């Protein structure tokens, strides 16, 4: 009986051993899209370059040590395609990554526009989507477990410090009316709608101008004149990099002045905006303070300073892609992917989902605390409101001014 049992155990061991060995893949295939050209290149390329930096860093150590395969280090193979900022091309390429390349992990292109086409495709194929910075609220629903937002809070939450500030400190200083001008896409459209809702709910500051413009808009002169005709105290312009460049230049050229002006990329891609509009057009503009300008204590991965040094070593200044918030998002996505791979039970997509959600609230990176809502929306990395304040001749600093517990300085409102 004893010998029979021993034989049975040996047989089972022989049967299981090769199966386990086969399960450990020779490489982890990660699929990612990027846009080397087109209107979203300036937010996509920093993400892609930073993600590549993370891949190189991991592979230099032999790969990711995966518990699912006994702690064995498995190298990453990055399969990436250029969608050229086209949603049609991106849709084809998302499909290709899933059905032809059979990637283990799928990482979306940067921003809501190019992520929007990937969300339904990933859901249909039951492939988990690492959504880098597609913050559109419509992407997240409880019936879709195949998505999680890595960096940036979901658009319905992200702008609440703007309305909180205006309703609180702004109101005390006499701010009563606001104009909202936004580009009509998932990213800024959702933020604009959320802001309008916040103001209407709080009934302090009144929205007197609320207009959408195509994301391709490159001239705001007449729009600014029309806003000035309404005489608002605050102007919130929500657009992509190209929109913000045109808006800030036109605002300066028009000579119109408002007490409070907000633009997303004046702070989040400060280097890029400064080189195109100049310091004088950015002075006292309010913006989000991204992790590239605010040091969070990183418990996983590099700190902001270490990452910036690594970035500048790999991509020296002048090499084409500027360091900014999107670079942080790309690297931070790499850190989440790494922790996911380290802790997942297997490469099955629902196990990937469980591993990602298992990090929620526990993972602290250079982008703040990674925290997910049930539907995959990011709710932990809410950026403070900041202002570009003069810090010497031809130099601006992005100072966090709200909320008070995160503030490094006081806001300067125009007369």
């Amino acid at each position, binding site marked *: 009986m004893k010998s029979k049992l021993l034989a049975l155990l040996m047989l089972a061991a022989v049967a299981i051993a090769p199966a386990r060995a086969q399960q450990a893949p020779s490489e982890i295939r990660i699929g990612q899209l990027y*846009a*080397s*050209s*087109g*209107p979203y*290149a*300036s937010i996509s*390329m920093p993400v892609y370059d930073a993600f590549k930096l993370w891949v190189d860093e991991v592979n230099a150590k032999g790969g990711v040590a995966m518990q699912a395969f006994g702690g064995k280090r498995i190298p990453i193979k990055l399969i990436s395609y250029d969608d*050229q*900022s086209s949603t049609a091309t991106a849709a084809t390429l998302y499909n290709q990554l899933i059905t032809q390349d059979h990637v283990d992990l799928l990482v979306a292109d940067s921003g809501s526009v190019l992520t929007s086409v990937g969300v339904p495709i990933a859901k249909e194929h039951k492939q988990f989507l690492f959504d880098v910075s597609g913050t559109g609220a419509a992407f997240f629903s409880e019936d879709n477990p195949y998505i999680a937002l890595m960096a940036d809070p979901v658009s319905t939450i992200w702008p609440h410090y703007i309305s909180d500030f205006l309703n609180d400190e702004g109101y005390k200083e006499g701010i009563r009316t606001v104009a909202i001008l936004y580009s*009509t896409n998932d990213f800024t459209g959702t933020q604009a709608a959320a802001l309008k809702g916040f103001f209407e709910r709080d009934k302090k500051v009144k929205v007197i101008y609320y*207009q*959408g*413009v*195509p994301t*391709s*808009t*490159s*001239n705001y*002169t*007449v*729009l600014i*004149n*029309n806003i*000035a*005709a309404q005489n608002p105290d605050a102007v919130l312009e929500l657009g992509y*990099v*190209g929109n913000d*460049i*045109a*808006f800030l*230049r*036109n605002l*300066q*050229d*028009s*000579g*119109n002045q408002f007490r409070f002006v907000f633009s997303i990329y004046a702070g989040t891609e400060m280097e*890029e905006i400064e*080189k*195109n*509009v*100049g310091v*004088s*057009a950015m002075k006292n503009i309010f913006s989000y303070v991204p992790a590239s300008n605010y040091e969070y204590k990183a418990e996983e991965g590099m700190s902001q300073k270490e990452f910036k040094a690594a970035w500048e070593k790999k991509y020296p200044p002048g090499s*084409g*892609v*500027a360091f900014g918030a999107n670079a942080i998002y790309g690297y931070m996505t790499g850190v989440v992917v790494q922790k996911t791979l380290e802790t997942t039970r297997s490469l099955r997509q629902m196990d990937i989902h469980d591993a990602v959600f298992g990090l929620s609230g526990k993972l602290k990176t250079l982008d703040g605390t990674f925290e997910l809502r049930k539907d995959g929306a990011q709710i932990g990395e809410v950026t403070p409101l900041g202002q570009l304040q003069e810090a010497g001749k031809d130099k601006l600093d992005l100072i966090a001014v709200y909320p008070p517990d995160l503030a490094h300085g006081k806001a300067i409102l125009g007369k």
Partner: protein
Amino acid sequence: MLTGALIAGVIFGLYFTLVGLGLNLVFGVMRIVNLAHGDVLMLGGIAAWALFSAFGLHPVVTAFLVLAVFLLAGLPVYYAVVPRLLRSRDAEMLSLILFFGISQMIEAVTTIAIGATERSLPPRLMGVGPIILLGTRLPKAWFYSAAVSAVAVLAVYFYLYRTRLGTLTRAVMVSRDEALATGIDVNLVSAIAFGISLALAGIAGVFAPFIMGSITPNMGVALNITAFAVIVVGTLGNPVGTILGGIIYGVSVMLMQTYLSSWANLLPNLLLIAVLLVRPEGILGRKTRRA
């Protein structure tokens, strides 16, 4: 707001006259559509950015350099591409395909060379602050760009109607075959017109950062659509009609931004469709189509 939109539209539209002028000249003389026109404009903008970044060259100086360089560059490009194209059975249609390919090449090479992100010139180069016209605040750069456009239109008019080469050009515009039969060096005349067209696009490009905020390698395709709308509205093949097309486009954009801003990017396509359905020969019509 209506007055402001109308005033801004006229000034803004004058710049787009310059954007469309060269495209219309090429169509008028050669009956081909240069779909790389917007990319040539982009190259003018890149030249202004590069020369300012490297040598601090003022864009007005760059405009003269671009005029000379693009004009000269147009001659070999013409001889390399156009005569062969014109010998084909359907030159107009083939030109669309060929120049679309050239457009894609220019965009790709520029992206490789300088990257895909936005480039611009400091606003101070054209003077910071507005010029107030009938209560409407407009950037100084708009007036300078409109003035350059007006000078370019006058120069093209002078060239076409007051020079011998212009007379020959108009002869080619009326009938290429008849011009050839009368002994005109049709290729030389066309090559010069092609060079002028590139130079006009290049000059428009130098001022593009001040009108459009920034320049990117991919901006050419959208500019082609706009330029095409401008010249179709004004009348294809009639460079003078481009002024009208540009102003109609500018005023329409500003009115759309004022009253229906979300739909403003549909405008070039709407104008194209409307003109092609209602008055396919363009607003100035057939009588003035051929110089």
